[in-house]
């Protein structure tokens, strides 16, 4: 009986530690940090395009060139490259967060969470997509 009780206590301890571990998501892996730094550096170049409305935040957690006319002809190619690089890093970020937490199948949920938070935190004047995909100015 005594043994059974101690086994039960061990079980409860395991339960508690599992519950505590679930309180935070792991985001401090080298891959995630590298992606974050790359995106932070790219933001220096993208910020002006967000502000001018040339680039907007999509409802699916990406960025998109929404108004090519807002970009001088000479810069268009580089903006397209920035958008493609940003979306590639964002996809990798969502995938890495899901797999760093042992649940690769969470990728779509991570993406949906980020999509909402990017839009919520966007500065006023930036363009974002609403739930039906229409562009609105914040």
């Amino acid at each position: 009986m005594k043994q059974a009780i101690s086994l039960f206590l061990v079980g409860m301890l395991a339960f508690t530690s599992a519950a505590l571990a679930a309180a935070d998501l792991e985001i401090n892996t080298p891959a995630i940090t590298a992606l974050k730094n790359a995106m932070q550096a790219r933001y220096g170049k993208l910020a002006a395009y967000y502000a001018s409305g040339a680039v907007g935040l999509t409802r699916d957690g990406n960025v998109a060139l929404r108004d090519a006319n807002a970009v001088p002809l000479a810069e268009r190619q580089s903006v397209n490259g920035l958008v493609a690089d940003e979306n590639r890093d964002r996809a990798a970020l969502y995938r890495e967060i899901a797999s760093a937490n042992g649940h690769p199948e969470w990728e779509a949920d991570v993406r949906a969470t980020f999509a909402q938070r990017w839009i919520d935190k966007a500065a006023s004047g930036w363009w974002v997509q609403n739930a039906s995909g229409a562009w609105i100015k914040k």
Partner: protein
Amino acid sequence: MQKRAMAWMGVIGLTLAGCVTINIYFPAAAAEKAADKIIDEVWQLKPGAKPAAPPAEPKGEAK
């Protein structure tokens, strides 16, 4: 006695199985917190993350 111990083992087994079940659900609140942390860093939204105001230069220094 043996039977009771077996019953306890069953309870423990179910408890542990419960942990695994709980972890299958997407932790939305934790994900939101993680997203906020990363977005704040990428966009440098947190005060202090970016030197917005450089230290005030000494003005009107005594001659």
